[in-house]
């Protein structure tokens, strides 16, 4: 049986990890390579880096971070933030990322999903979607709306319909990030996560709102998620990953036991 994955998320701005609440008020909290190594050693199952740098020099800075991370950690990691073209994706994959995460760019230009899947394989293409509960209305049957550009622009697009469209176009995985829950520590949005996970044939990753170990349990059980993204809950040392895994294991969730072996860099 496949283990449920815990995925620490590192928002990187100008080469430094930051953590914000509802996309505002970011504070630098650390060096991405050191943090990646820390989570790797703690038994994180995967990592995700979002580049939130606003400047034009962003690409170079982030690629340097990616290639340094890739030399030190040997678990999958994905990179997102501002990827719009096949060339953007190729650069990140060549620098050592296992997957690319596309978001607003895919909403504006959905064929980037199918082109990316064709060029690099579906397993490389993660469609990340920011969703907000804005209420059921015509054309928004689920009541969940896709939001882009860091939560600023409402698209009028139904989140569940977009998830299906993304899967059909060739995304290998979906990240469902709840804007309502992001940074709140109030728990994941289980309803939208479950509704999407149970209706697509690709893995679904819950994101936004983790504040306690039971929130992860709920994402995996009630939310039917295959993986869960964590940020504040691990960044500030409240719940180290081994403690989260012990809790989940006791709650009957299949998790990966991180093992220590005598393998040293020489």
């Amino acid at each position, binding site marked *: *049986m*496949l*283990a449920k*994955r815990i995925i620490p998320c590192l928002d990187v701005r100008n080469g430094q990890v930051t953590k914000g609440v509802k996309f505002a008020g970011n504070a630098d909290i650390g060096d991405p390579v050191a943090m990646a190594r820390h989570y*790797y050693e703690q*038994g994180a*199952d995967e990592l995700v880096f979002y580049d939130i740098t606003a400047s034009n020099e962003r690409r170079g800075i982030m690629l340097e971070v990616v290639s340094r991370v*890739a*030399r*030190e950690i*040997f*678990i*999958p990691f994905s990179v997102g933030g501002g990827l719009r073209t096949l060339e953007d994706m190729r650069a990140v*994959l*060549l620098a*050592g990322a*296992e997957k690319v995460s596309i978001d607003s760019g895919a909403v504006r230009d959905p064929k980037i999903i199918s082109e990316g899947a064709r060029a*690099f*394989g*579906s*397993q*490389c293409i993660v469609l990340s979607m920011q969703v907000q509960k804005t209420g059921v209305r015509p054309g928004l049957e689920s009541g969940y709306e896709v939001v882009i550009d860091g939560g600023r622009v409402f698209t009028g697009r139904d989140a569940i319909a977009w998830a299906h469209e993304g899967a059909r176009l060739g995304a*290998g*995985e979906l990240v469902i990030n709840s804007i309502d829950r992001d940074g709140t520590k109030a728990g994941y949005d289980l309803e939208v996560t479950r509704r999407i996970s149970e209706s697509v*044939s*690709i*893995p679904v990753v819950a994101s936004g709102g983790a504040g306690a170990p039971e929130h992860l349990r709920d994402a995996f059980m009630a939310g039917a998620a*295959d*993986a869960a993204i964590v940020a504040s809950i691990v960044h500030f040392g409240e719940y180290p990953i081994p403690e989260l895994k012990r809790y989940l294991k006791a709650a009957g969730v299949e998790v*990966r*036991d*991180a*093992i*220590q*072996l*005598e*393998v040293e*860099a*020489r």
Partner: protein
Amino acid sequence: MIVIVDYRAGNLTSVKRALEFLGHQCEITDDADKIRAAERVILPGVGAAGATMENLRALGLAEVLRRDVAAARKPFLGVCIGIQVLFDRSEEDSADCLGVIPGHVTRYPASIDGRALKVPQIGWNRVRQTRAHPIFSGVPDNTHFYFVNSYYPLPADPEVVIAESDYGVQFVAAVASGRVIATQFHLEKSGAAGLKLLDNFCRLTF
């Protein structure tokens, strides 16, 4: 020298980085002479069986792997698509493969007992070591490894199976036949356990 076979697939460099982290010299190459001269050969990668075989043939490397590596008893490690192309054929793209190990490669079922199975399998799964093999030296039984696959091998001879796992169905996760060893899981992305297997391969004496 350890060579990583370059057949224009993704993630060749991640295997190189893992080997370098472990302190093993290696080179990514499509040069048949370098592959013939190598001490050990690794065929990693992600991709589809059809495209992989097309590229190996176009580069003249299919025959090199068959004759100068497998038949010449050179230590060989296949990873992910590198295990699948060792068999006679794959259901993926109806590809004729290398035929180094008898058998074929099949796809996971779309559903098990009426419940949909998510394909590809993406994530960490437990690997049961069904037969003692030095490639697993120092790695506990039932350790998790990282998989990304829609297809898995069905060897004709059960004796080649050294590890299994479960994803809806019980499936073959690793095989060994003489000096040919191959895993369905990604050694370069499986944390310390994956690094240990890579290190074991680089040090194996036959």
